[in-house]
């Protein structure tokens, strides 16, 4: 009977060799991706003492269950509120800047202007530079006393500000730095998307006498919407993970104006040993990320249905 069902394709044959192939990868993922994620979730609901943790086993988390107390503490922490606003502020600059910049570059390079192969490489190079190096380079360029930017402004008789020592300007400078570093990657994704748009659509638009801007609005941008949704999620994850740039460029200052949530989590965990609180913060960050992602997905899905 079993053989008969198998013949008809009703039961698929489990291929036991599959387990051998996935074994090394799955062990690493269970141990160093999944288990740490669960660890943090449990830790966020416990009163964990660093000392007890030092003597505990690999798979035990000592400490009293305290329910959602760490979450309440975190939400009432003014520094956390500030860091969350900072992260959202950073995202609000970084995501549109990088997304529209990447579309613009992709469209420009798609026009087949001379030297685009070289330029594609040029725009892509910053992506492979170490984030700490990119941070240090921009720190020097935007230095208030001897930076290049203020040097150029000086030639125009403008007294340049101390960019990274200003509570208003430091975050935008970091966003511009990360945009410079990341834009090439998203440009490539958009270029791949453009190659999939049929040329006949543009030809038809040309016959109707459409302008460049109209063609972009009516054809290019709507047909790139699926890619834009993916790009948005990737940029959101990037923006919610900003840590090393802050560590190198500002250390969270001036006056806490560049403390992001990941930077605060690092400080809470490794400087003050507030383990439960750090874990709670990280899950709040995750939940907010998921909420934003789902919301934009819903909004875009409605548009895609037309």
């Amino acid at each position, binding site marked *: 009977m079993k053989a008969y069902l198998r013949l008809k394709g009703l039961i698929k044959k489990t*291929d036991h060799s*599959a*387990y051998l*192939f*996935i074994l*090394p*990868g799955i062990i*690493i*993922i269970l141990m*160093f*991706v*999944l288990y*740490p994620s669960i*660890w*943090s979730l449990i*830790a966020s609901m416990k009163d964990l003492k660093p000392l007890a943790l030092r003597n505990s*086993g690999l798979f035990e988390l000592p400490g009293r269950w305290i329910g959602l107390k760490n979450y309440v503490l975190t939400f009432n922490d003014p520094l956390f509120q500030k860091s969350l606003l900072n992260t959202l502020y950073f995202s609000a600059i970084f995501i549109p800047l990088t997304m529209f910049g990447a579309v613009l570059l992709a469209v*420009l390079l798609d*026009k087949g*202007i001379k030297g685009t192969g070289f*330029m*594609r490489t040029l725009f*892509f*190079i*910053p992506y*492979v*530079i*170490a984030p700490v190096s990119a941070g*240090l*380079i*921009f720190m*020097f360029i935007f*230095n208030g006393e*001897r*930076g*290049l930017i*203020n*040097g*150029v402004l*000086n030639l125009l008789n403008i007294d340049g500000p101390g960019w990274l020592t200003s509570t208003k300007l430091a975050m935008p400078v970091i966003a511009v730095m990360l945009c410079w570093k990341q834009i090439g*990657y998203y440009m*490539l*994704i958009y270029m*791949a998307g453009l190659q999939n748009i049929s040329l006949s659509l543009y030809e038809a638009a040309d016959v109707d006498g459409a302008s460049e801007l109209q063609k972009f609005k009516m054809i290019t941008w709507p047909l790139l919407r699926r890619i834009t949704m*993916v790009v948005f999620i990737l940029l959101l994850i990037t923006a919610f*993970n900003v*840590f*090393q740039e802050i560590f*190198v460029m500002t250390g969270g200052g001036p006056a806490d104006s560049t403390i992001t949530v*990941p930077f605060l*989590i*690092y400080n809470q*965990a490794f400087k003050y040993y507030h*383990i439960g609180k750090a*874990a709670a913060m*990280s*899950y709040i*960050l*995750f939940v907010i990320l998921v909420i934003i*992602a789902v919301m934009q997905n819903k909004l875009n899905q409605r548009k895609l249905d037309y």
Partner: protein
Amino acid sequence: MKKKTDLFWKILLYIIAFLFLVPLYWLLVSSVKTDIEITRFPPTLWPEEVKLGNFIYIWHYLKFMRTFFNSVLVSTSTTILIVFFSTMAGYAFAKKDFLGKNILMVLLVGTMAIPAAVRLLPLFFIITKLGMYDQLIGLILPFGVTIFGIFFMKQYIEDIPDSLLEAAKIDGCGEFRIFFTIIVPLLKPATTALTIIEFTNNWNSFTMPLILLKSPEKFTLPLRVGMLSQRLVEMSWSQIMAANTLVVIPIIIIVLFLQKYFIKGIMAGSIKG
């Protein structure tokens, strides 16, 4: 009319390209300036005196040979593990049926969105309890596979026709012979792309070395260079830029040589994904 708009786009593109070059130009130019010239304001756009002394100073300061070796060791070993284990797992997910396959796939996709900050502290404890704290192996083994890598390879392996595998099976090829003599050779463009993507990520990694290493003689290049940001009072900017040049140049050279695979890998991955 059409000519005019084309010219406008052309100029715009050249301006953006120029702006993109500025930070790289400034990095190289500043790294050869003297300590006095680097403090001048407004800065000189071209060095009055080219001085390679910064590189000699920073070479010793970073203990370059040792640090460079650590970076090469960690990045190469991790990348080899990632490519190997991701290809194996990707093959099973693409071509085999097994119990729990769908659950595992959902699990992998789900964990992809979890911010790295969630895992930072537990990873520190887990790796410490496994006795790998302040050891280079602690930066290699726990990061020896990536979910991105598994999905990346899975997409490519799905394109290999089943008939090819069935034919090999009929000829009496064993599972592992099929994998190594048929699958792996066909995947060369994909494995090259994954290799260079993962090598770049590991070469540039700062956060994990920061929390997992303590002894300076085990530090990797980005960790040492990132730490210079805490020493801005005693270092000159020309020295800091020289240090960054040493980190940035190797990876740019590698990428320029292999950019065809890198760029194709990203573009192909984005469409299929």
